[in-house]
């Protein structure tokens, strides 16, 4: 824009407020207002004497995570490392259960929230029935799918968990549903966007060879987005593992439960043992998904 202006140089402006400058200024003013409204948050970041001691103790413990429990435990309690391993395993199980339901939801809702299965571009025909379908039924289902995705996504998994906790008590199915619903919504949204944006050349070619609308969608459109869909699902699986861990704070037997208990007892070294287990888990998942991605893409 500015380079264009140089061609027809209007000379220096008396008061140089361009639209861009105005936007930048408003953002700055909004930041100052927010800062003042929060009542000087920086001042509260300076911890008191006691708080400072806790912080120091906590981070000092990072250097020597517990290899034994820090206080006597009842007879028959498994070793802390075995405990961490079991909690990590349960974390993965919760995440995997939530994700498998989420992927199903994502595929079904993702399909219905693309325009590709009813729009004239790929599936449309010239018959009156087809046209009516593309004009009314398709858009109606599409809108319903989009709306349910918004509802599923706008409530965070922790809120879903609280809701299910209140409704069903400490129930494994509730925890799985708490992950599955928002993740299903997110997957559906991203799946549909990836499918809509994937190149349509192969889909058009299959249509030109007589394939039906559903065949065109499944064999022409989805495979072109396939590697992206798989990579994104893996990323969400990592997120689900973290979410499953945090659900432990509500009492589900994942890593978060162990972390919360040790934290309450001020056993920071134990907390770090469990945190390292979580970090290790995420790193392992990342290595695994990276290897698979290389196989998909290369």
């Amino acid at each position, binding site marked *: 824009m500015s380079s264009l202006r140089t061609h027809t140089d209007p000379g220096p402006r008396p008061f140089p407020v361009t639209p861009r400058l105005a936007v930048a200024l408003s953002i700055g003013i909004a930041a100052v207002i927010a800062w003042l409204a929060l009542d000087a948050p920086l001042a509260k970041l300076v911890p008191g004497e006691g708080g400072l001691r806790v912080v120091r103790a906590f981070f000092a413990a990072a250097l020597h995570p517990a290899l034994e429990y820090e206080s006597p435990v009842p007879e028959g309690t498994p070793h802390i490392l075995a405990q961490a391993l079991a909690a990590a395993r349960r974390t993965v199980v919760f995440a995997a259960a939530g994700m498998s339901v989420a992927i199903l939801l994502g595929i079904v809702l993702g399909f219905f929230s693309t325009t590709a299965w009813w729009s004239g571009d790929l599936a449309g*025909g*010239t*018959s009156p029935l*087809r046209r009516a379908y593309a004009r009314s039924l398709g858009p109606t289902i599409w809108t319903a799918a989009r709306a349910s995705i918004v509802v599923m996504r706008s409530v965070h998994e922790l809120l879903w968990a609280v809701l299910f906790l209140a409704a069903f008590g400490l129930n494994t199915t509730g925890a799985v549903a708490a992950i599955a619903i928002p993740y299903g919504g997110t997957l559906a949204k991203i799946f549909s966007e990836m499918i809509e944006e994937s190149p349509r*050349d*192969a889909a*058009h*070619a*299959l*249509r*030109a*060879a*007589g*394939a*039906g609308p*559903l*065949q065109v969608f*499944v*064999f*022409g459109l989805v*495979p*072109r987005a*396939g*590697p992206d869909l798989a990579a994104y699902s893996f990323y969400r699986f990592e997120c689900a593992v973290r979410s499953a861990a945090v659900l432990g704070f509500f009492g589900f037997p994942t890593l978060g439960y162990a972390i919360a208990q040790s934290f309450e007892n001020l056993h920071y070294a134990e907390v770090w043992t469990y945190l390292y287990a979580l970090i290790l888990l995420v790193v392992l998942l990342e290595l695994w998904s990276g290897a698979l991605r290389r196989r*998909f893409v290369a």
Partner: protein
Amino acid sequence: MKPSARPLSTSVSCADHDAWKRARPGSAAFELHGAGVVFSGRTALTEASLVVDPGEALALVGPSGAGKTTLLRLLNASQVPTSGTVCVDYRRLDLLPPKGLRAVRARIGFVHQDLALVPNYRVLQNVIAGSLGRLGFAGGVRAMLFPTRVEIERAAVILERVGIAAKLYQRTDSLSGGERQRVALARALYQEPSALLLDEPVSSVDPARARDMVELVTAISRERGITLVVSIHDIGLARDHFPRLVGLRAGRIVFDGPIDSATATIATSDLSALYSLEGLARVEPAHAH
């Protein structure tokens, strides 16, 4: 058999009651009668009339943007004309229900300019995708995921015919441009088509390979009696391999003639006019022959 070119028929033969009886299984017949295509205000094709007999081979020539792709898309029912009629095997496409249109498309192999393959499929899957038009949804899933031995062998035979037998299980995006083009041709042949339509098969490969490709499709369609329509930018190549040339310019058919010794001179002057910037007036009468 070298099919001879013929002057444009002005009668609407597919409107004849008995015309469909002339249809030959395995060799499609095409007719355009005053077909026009307008894309949101932009005219792509005007008053195009063309008769292609069963088993004929012809090349569409003309500069890019002349309407060659649009004409090809009319022939396989991918494009609905905004005016005029299109007939395949003496049946008017505008009178066919969607199922009938699918059946027509399933019998016409189309090799797209950009090939339109799924790059992350194996070659076998891309080839078998050619049969989707003949299968229902469940049958298609079965064929794509669990091809039978017979289907694999059929695909292998076709790949051997197009010269890439060894690539059956390779990922399509690991192949060269020329090999991918042959995969696209194999997919079209797997349809067991009664016509092959190729859109600019020479634009994406080097000249030697382009010649090989044109020789390959003309040989295959001759040995199987398949009707062949190829759009080609390269006039020399078109003249060397096709008995009939149809010239397009700015959305109009500007000539339609045989290539043989008797008419070579006429054709040559027409051809030079086709690509010259000021030649439009000279070739205006569409039925000059």
